[in-house]
């Protein structure tokens, strides 16, 4: 069937193009070809993903990729996206898949929250001259300390040198190179990366043990006792912000031999994670899985439970804490994904800002806030978001999309195709090689260090020199352009109040 869609992007090539064919080589979607008869480069706009790979790599800077200017007659009810989705589905009869976090214009609360700074009544602190501390502990904390028996009641914790961790991205969804880069960067920055549900390649285990969080998801890929013990913590993934209530699907094409071995499944088969864990149909079942994992790991590792931010998130979180989780990770609706049905990604869940604040408050009201730590993820875009998340009650944040962007991702949303031209979201050996592990790791380390510096500057301005004094400190936040109910949920005052 001939597609009736307009191309999404228009490619223009200036006269400076000397037909080196670099773009042809770089484009993983087969857009550019060389026509020898005319000695000309030809581009097929229809196939372009807008990943900008060719534009960046063209030695002459001859290529420009722009959203196509052609349009359907403007219609407030029938936007271009709605029209094209219908045409696409009429052509395929299938669910529309997409990658990355939702790109819909839901209110981004971070941008409606302002930070405080000291003036006169207390001094701001200069982070260049004074110590400024970001060390963070994640895990269950006892209510009090017994000096005679310091061991008693101290559960295992994760120690982070900066309050940011890389969120779960599985080997299989991302390339081996990207996976390694995350592991290296986490260990150099004194923080953690998360294996996601694809298992942990055996050869990486001993080197990165101290900086790995191993994940257990509904597909149970690659899980055995050795795997569970190959990291510093175990995360049970119940849900993901981009697709709450939905399982995962890694297409067979991405299941290479090594991916298959790590996941403990046959090569080339689809790796399908069911929507729920079929041994968790209630909170008691979660409690049993947590206990089982603690038993297998000899009570030496904190257990994280990751859930998507949904409507009753605070009650759910309270249940999770009572079920024995040491850390709860909440993933907001703008969280990324390798592949998700577009309808789910763009319509299910709630923003992380609201979720983290109401969870923190609920746990405080119940007096169990210190029994677990909170990691907020799904929509953290910059250091200010980190500061705001912590002031709203998070202990630390997960960053996923930002880490991918640091490695080169341009959010073209084609991760599910396995053709990532930046070598991040692919198992194609040729594409994968494009991502230099050492360089990608360095970019990640740089990002964390840049954000850490900025966090220190913001803390110093508030007159705070240790990150623990920011946690839940809503005093340092004011809302702007928000409704009363939104301020209430966030638990902050309006600007000027």
């Amino acid at each position: 069937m001939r597609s009736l869609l307009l191309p999404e992007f228009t490619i223009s090539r200036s006269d400076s193009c000397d037909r080196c064919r670099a773009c042809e080589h770089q484009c993983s979607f087969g857009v550019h070809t060389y026509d020898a008869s005319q000695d000309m480069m030809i581009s097929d706009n229809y196939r372009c993903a807008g990943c900008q790979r060719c534009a960046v790599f063209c030695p002459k800077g001859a290529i420009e990729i722009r959203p196509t200017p052609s349009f359907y007659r403007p219609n407030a009810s029938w936007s271009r996206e709605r029209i094209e989705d219908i045409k696409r589905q009429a052509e395929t009869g299938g669910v529309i898949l997409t990658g990355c976090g939702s790109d819909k214009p839901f209110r981004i609360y971070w941008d409606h929250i302002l930070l405080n700074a000291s003036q006169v009544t207390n001094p701001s602190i200069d982070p260049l001259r004074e110590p400024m501390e970001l060390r963070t502990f994640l895990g269950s904390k006892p209510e009090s300390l017994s000096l005679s028996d310091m061991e008693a009641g101290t559960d295992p914790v994760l120690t982070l040198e900066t309050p940011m961790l890389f969120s779960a991205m599985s080997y299989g969804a991302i390339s081996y190179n990207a996976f390694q880069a995350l592991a290296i960067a986490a260990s150099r920055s004194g923080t953690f990366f998360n294996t996601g549900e694809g298992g942990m390649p055996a050869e990486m285990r001993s080197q990165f043990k101290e900086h790995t969080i191993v994940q257990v998801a509904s597909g149970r890929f690659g899980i055995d006792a050795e795997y569970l013990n190959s990291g510093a913590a175990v995360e049970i993934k119940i849900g993901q912000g981009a697709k709450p209530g939905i399982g995962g699907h890694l297409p067979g094409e991405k299941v290479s031999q090594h991916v298959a071995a790590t996941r403990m499944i046959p090569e080339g088969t689809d790796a399908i994670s069911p929507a729920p864990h079929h041994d968790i149909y209630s909170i008691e079942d979660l409690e049993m899985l947590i206990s089982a994992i603690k038993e297998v790991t000899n009570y030496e590792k904190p257990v994280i439970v990751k859930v998507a931010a949904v409507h009753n998130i605070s009650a759910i979180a309270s249940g999770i804490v009572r079920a024995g989780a040491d850390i709860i990770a909440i993933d907001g609706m703008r969280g990324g994904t390798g592949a998700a049905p577009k309808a789910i990604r763009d319509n299910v869940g709630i923003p992380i800002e609201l979720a983290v604040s109401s969870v923190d408050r609920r746990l405080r009201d119940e007096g169990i806030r210190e029994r677990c730590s909170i990691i907020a993820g799904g929509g953290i875009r910059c250091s200010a978001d980190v500061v705001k998340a912590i002031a709203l009650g998070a202990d630390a944040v997960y960053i996923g999309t930002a880490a991918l962007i640091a490695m080169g991702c341009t959010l073209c949303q084609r991760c599910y195709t396995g053709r990532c031209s930046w070598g991040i979201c692919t198992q194609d050996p040729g594409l994968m090689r494009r991502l230099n592990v050492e360089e990608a790791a360095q970019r990640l380390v740089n990002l964390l260090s840049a954000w850490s510096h900025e966090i220190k500057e913001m803390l110093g301005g508030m007159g705070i020199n240790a990150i623990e004094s920011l946690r839940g400190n809503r005093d340092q936040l004011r809302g702007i352009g928000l409704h009363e109910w939104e301020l209430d949920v966030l638990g902050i005052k309006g600007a000027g109040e």
Partner: protein
Amino acid sequence: MSVRRQKLYSKEICACSIFGAMSRTGERFTGERVIRAMANMHHRGNGLGGGFAAYGIYPEFREYYAFHLMFTGDARAQREAKRAAEEFLFRNFDVVHDEEIPHSDDVYVRDPPLLWRYFLSPSKHGEDIHLPDDEYVVRKVVHVNSAIDNAYIFSSGKNMGCFKGVGYPEEIGRYFMLDRLYRGYLWTAHGRFPTNSQAWWGGAHPFGLLDTTVVHNGEISSYGTNRWYLEMLGYKCTLHTDTEVVAYAVDLLMRRQDLPMEVVAKILAPPTWETIDRMDVRERELLTTLRRIYGPLLMNGPFAVIIAQSGRMIGLTDRIRLRPLTVATRGEMFYISSEEASVRLISPSLDSVWSPRGGEPVICELDGRLKHEIAAPA
């Protein structure tokens, strides 16, 4: 603003003068010199709050809790508050003596409330029978302060008392005739410079819970964090001041969790990780555990504080020492002050004077040697 949010994190901001004097041998002295010392720091306050805590002043009632109450509002409101508070007190305590707190009409103060004191011991009923006395008293105090309109218990320890109000500290001192009527072995004092003008007698400092009192100069940037932690553990921060938060933290750690002051100081003002990481294993583990568990009680931002309890006085500044604190000794006398000049005024020659380092507590105990005398540089 919705009521729910209005209650969230409103905080008074103020700066101050603080002063403490203690006789280590337990010699009792009047408040006369303390008032003079405070008058010397007149400019550090703005007349919107002054107060004193004095220890050892009620030896004849030393077995009994001494409650100081203020009843505010117009004459009728005061009478009604007194009636309601007394009804509650007489039901829950054996009151052995009560009287108006004496004051001098020669000193002009603005809108003084009706001030009354009660000497009493717990009379527990029902489930309360199993509570320790101190816990019982704390709960009753919290009840009066939160549930009875216009009645406020501002002092509740044994053989000690707080005196405070709206005015310069020297005016408040003379109003209560602290220079004539009372002799104590330990005095602390506070002059206040709030940045809002809604002066209220109960809002003056010191703030006390049982026999722990706090005078404080600073603005704690971690207030929001400290407060949620304490509220989670059952404290109600109704006064919205940093001082209240420090007092509750001390109560939680020392009375409820039985930690020694040295450890408490390391919780409120811990050393930096750089310092901790260089310590030997035992110390490093202790301090790491303290920060891990008690991170939310770290008092961040500038403060200098004098904490007093029966038999001891403690001076402490924030971890990077952003507010002044001077410590001095002369014979058995021990002084802590915002300014050295005030100490020199009442004790021109001193045996030693020093400024403690940030986060280093200075602890002075009765009948004992100054624990941190050693900390004094030569």
